[in-house]
C-alpha cells in the first residue's frame, strides 16, 4: 500500500471539513447571495441537501468497498485501462483545483492584508510548506487538522457572536421563495464545494477503525459544513443586506472588520486572518496529498514521495497561469467551476459505483450458483 499511516473516524470527519470549509467561508457567501438575494441562506440550505445526497453517494463506497479507494473500484468496474483513464481525469481535476485554491489564498492575502508583498511569495511558501506536510504522510495531516480545527471554529464562532448586535432581521424579508430556478442556480456553487468531499473516497482504506461506521462521520461532516455556511451567509446578509453582501469581495472578512465593541475589541480581522491561513494551509495540503496519491496509484508507483517536488512546481506555475486577475478567479468559480467540479464529484462516482455494484452482485450470484 502507498500509505502506511492510518487515521481515525474523527480525523476523517475533520479532513472532510478541511477539504471544503477554509475557502468556502471566504468566497462562496458573496457569490450565492449575488444570485439568490435575501434568500442566500436558503440557497445554502438547499446546497446542504445536495451535499448530504453526495455524502450518501460517497458513504456507499465506505459500506460496499471498505478496503478499496475510488480508483480501485473503478478498475474493478471498467478494467485496468478505463480505470487508469479515470485516474488521469482526477489528476487533472485535482491539479487544476489545487492550483486555484493556492491562487485564491495568495490573492486574498495580497488584497486584504499585505498589498506590498508579491503574490509569488505567498504562493511559493505555502506550496513548499504543504509539500513538506505531504511528505510526512496522512497521519501527520490528520493530526494537523485536529490541531487547527478548534482555532478555526472558535475564530468563526467568535466573529459571528460579536456581530450579533448588528443583525437586522428585517433584511431577510420577504421570506417567500420567489423563484425555484434562481434558488437552484444559486445553490449550485456551494453544492460544488460540498462535493469536494469526493476526495475522501481516495483514502477509505486508510481509516483504521470501524470503516463500516465511517459513513456516519462523512454525512456528519457535510452537515457541519452546510450549517456553518448557512450561519455565515445569514450573518453577512443580516449585517450588510443582501445587495451590499454580494458587492463585497470577501464578506466574511468584512464581518470581522466591522466588529467594534466598546472601542476596545476592534480590528479583529488580523487574528481571524492568521487562523484562516492555518485552515487554508491544511486544505492545500490535503488536495496536494490526494493529488500525489492518485497519481502514484494510477501509474502503479511504489511510493508517492518522488512526485511531491515536481508537483509542487506544477502547482506553483499553474496557479500563476490559471487566472490573469482576481476578477477572472471569481468569474471562474461562479460559472465554470460548478460544472467542471460536479462531473468529478457526481457523474464519475455514480457511474463507477453503479457498474461496480452490478458486477459485484453478478459475481456474488454466480459464486452462489457454484456453491449450490
Amino acid at each position, binding site marked *: 500500500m502507498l500509505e502506511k499511516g492510518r487515521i481515525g473516524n474523527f480525523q476523517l470527519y475533520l479532513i472532510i471539513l478541511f477539504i471544503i470549509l477554509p475557502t468556502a467561508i471566504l468566497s462562496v457567501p458573496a457569490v450565492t447571495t449575488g444570485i439568490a438575494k435575501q434568500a442566500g441562506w436558503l440557497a445554502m440550505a438547499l446546497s446542504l441537501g445536495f451535499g448530504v445526497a453526495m455524502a450518501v453517494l460517497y458513504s456507499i463506497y465506505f459500506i460496499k468497498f471498505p478496503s478499496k479507494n475510488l480508483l480501485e473500484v473503478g478498475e474493478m468496474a471498467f478494467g485496468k485501462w478505463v480505470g487508469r483513464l479515470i485516474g488521469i481525469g482526477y489528476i487533472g481535476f485535482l491539479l487544476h483545483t489545487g492550483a486555484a485554491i493556492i491562487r485564491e489564498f495568495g490573492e486574498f492575502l495580497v*488584497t*486584504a*492584508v*499585505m*498589498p*506590498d*508583498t508579491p503574490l509569488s*511569495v505567498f504562493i511559493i*511558501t505555502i506550496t513548499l510548506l504543504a509539500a513538506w506536510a505531504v511528505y510526512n504522510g496522512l497521519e501527520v495531516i490528520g493530526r494537523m487538522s485536529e490541531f487547527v480545527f478548534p482555532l478555526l471554529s472558535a475564530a468563526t464562532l467568535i466573529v459571528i457572536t460579536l456581530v450579533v448586535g448588528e443583525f437586522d432581521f*428585517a*433584511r431577510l*424579508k*420577504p421570506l*417567500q421563495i*420567489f423563484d425555484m430556478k434562481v434558488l437552484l442556480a444559486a445553490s449550485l456553487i456551494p453544492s460544488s464545494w460540498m462535493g469536494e468531499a469526493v476526495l475522501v473516497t481516495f483514502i477509505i482504506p486508510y481509516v483504521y477503525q470501524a470503516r463500516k461506521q465511517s459513513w456516519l462521520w462523512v454525512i456528519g461532516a457535510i452537515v457541519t459544513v452546510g450549517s456553518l455556511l448557512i450561519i455565515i451567509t445569514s450573518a453577512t446578509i443580516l449585517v*450588510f*443586506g*443582501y*445587495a*451590499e453582501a454580494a*458587492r*463585497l469581495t470577501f464578506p466574511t472578512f*468584512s464581518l470581522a*472588520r*466591522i466588529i*467594534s465593541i466598546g472601542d476596545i475589541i*476592534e*480590528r479583529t480581522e488580523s487574528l481571524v486572518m492568521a487562523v484562516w491561513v492555518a485552515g487554508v494551509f491544511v486544505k492545500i495540503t490535503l488536495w496536494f496529498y490526494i493529488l500525489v496519491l492518485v497519481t502514484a496509484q494510477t501509474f502503479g508507483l511504489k511510493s508517492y514521495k518522488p512526485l511531491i517536488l515536481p508537483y509542487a512546481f506544477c502547482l506553483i506555475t499553474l496557479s500563476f497561469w490559471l487566472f490573469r486577475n482576481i476578477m477572472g478567479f471569481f468569474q471562474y468559480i461562479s460559472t465554470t467551476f460548478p460544472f467542471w467540479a460536479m462531473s468529478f464529484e457526481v457523474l464519475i462516482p455514480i457511474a463507477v459505483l453503479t457498474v461496480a455494484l452490478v458486477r459485484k452482485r453478478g459475481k456474488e450470484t454466480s459464486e452462489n450458483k457454484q456453491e449450490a
Partner: protein
Amino acid sequence: MKINRRLSRFVILLVFFSVTITGCWSRNEIEDLGIISAAALDAAPNNRVQLSLMILQPPALAGGPGGGGGGAEEAAIIISAEGNNVAEAARNIATMLPRKIFWSHNRLILIGGDLAKRGLHDLDFFSRERQTRLTSWVMVSSGKAADLLKVKTHLEKTPAESLAQLNRSQVSLPIQVYEFLSALSTEGVGPVVPRVDKTPSLEAGKGKEEALKLTGTAIFKENRLAGWANMNETRGLLWLRGEMAGGVITINDPIHAEGYISVRIRDASRKLTVISEEDGLGLRVKIITDVDVEEVQQKSQIGNPQYIKAIEEAVAKEISDHCNKALALAKELRVDAFSFGAQIRGIVPDYWEQVHEEWDNVFSDIPVDIDVEVNIRRMGLRNNTMERKD
C-alpha cells in the same frame, strides 16, 4: 554519517530561515506614518473633489492634558488637496506630506453640503481600500466640511474625537460607512446622515470661538442630498424608523396653565402594519414607549391617575407632532427616509414589485396613520413636587 546528514540539514534550515524570516516585508515604522483621524470631502470646481485630512501630531498628543509644555502645539494639522476622485486627491496630498498616509485610525468622514447635493460617489474608496475602517462615522455639514475640522474643540483633543462622541447622543441617527453603503444598495432604504455645524463656543464669554453641534439630519435621495431635517424632525425620523433609544421630551403642563414637565424615554418600539384600502395601500405605525418623569415644575399630585393620563396624552401628542413633521418633510422631498419601502417589500412583496420603480412618488401619496402609546412607569426619587407654603 548520520550525524553529518542531520547537521547539514540543520545548517540548511538555519540559513533558509535566517534569510526568509528576518523581518516584515511591508513594515511601517510609526514615525513614518501620517495618522489620519478625520477626513473631510468637499466639492471642488469642475466636478472635482477636495479632500482634507486631519493628521495627528504625535508630540502634542503625547504631552497629555495640562502638560503645559506641549500646549502651544496643535494636536493635529490639516492638509487639503483636490483631485478627480478621493484616490487622486489622496495621492496629491501624499506629495505634500512627508509621511505615509495611514488610514487605519480614521474615525470620521465629513461630507460638505455642496458635494452631498452634487451626489456622493466617493465612499467606494473607503470600503475598497484595505486600511480604512468600515466603521468610520459619516456626517454631513451644511457648509464646507474642511472648515469644521479647523474648529478648536473643547474637552476632546480633535474635532474627530468630539464628533465621534456626539454621535453617541440619542438625538441623532449615527451611520457608519458600511451602513451607508448598505442603505444605498438596499431596495426601499434611503440613507440618512447626521448633520453637524459650527456654533458659537460653549465656553461663556468667548463668542469668537466656535464649537461643533449636531443640528439635525441630512436626508439623501439615493446618493444625493435631498434636504435637511431639523432637530424636531430628526426626533420624528428616529421614532418612525424605530431607532429612538432615549432622550428627554418636555411638554407644557397639561393641567396647570404654566410650567413644564419633562419625561425621559426609557424604551421605545415601533410596529409597522400595512392596511389595504380601496385605492391602494395605507400604513399604520404604532409607537409604544415607556417613559419616566424627569422634572415637574408646578405643585401637582403626581400620583393622581388622571394627571398621569393627561401627561401621557400630552407626551403622545408631542411625539406624533414630531412624527408628522418628519413625515411631511419626507413627503415634500419625495424621499422615503423611514425605510418604509424595505418593510413593505418584506410584508407585501407582490405589491412592492409593482411600485418599486416609482416608490418615491407612491410613498408621497400613501396615507400614514400614526398611533402613539405612552406609558409613564416611574417618577424618580420624589413623589410630589416641591411644596411651597402658599
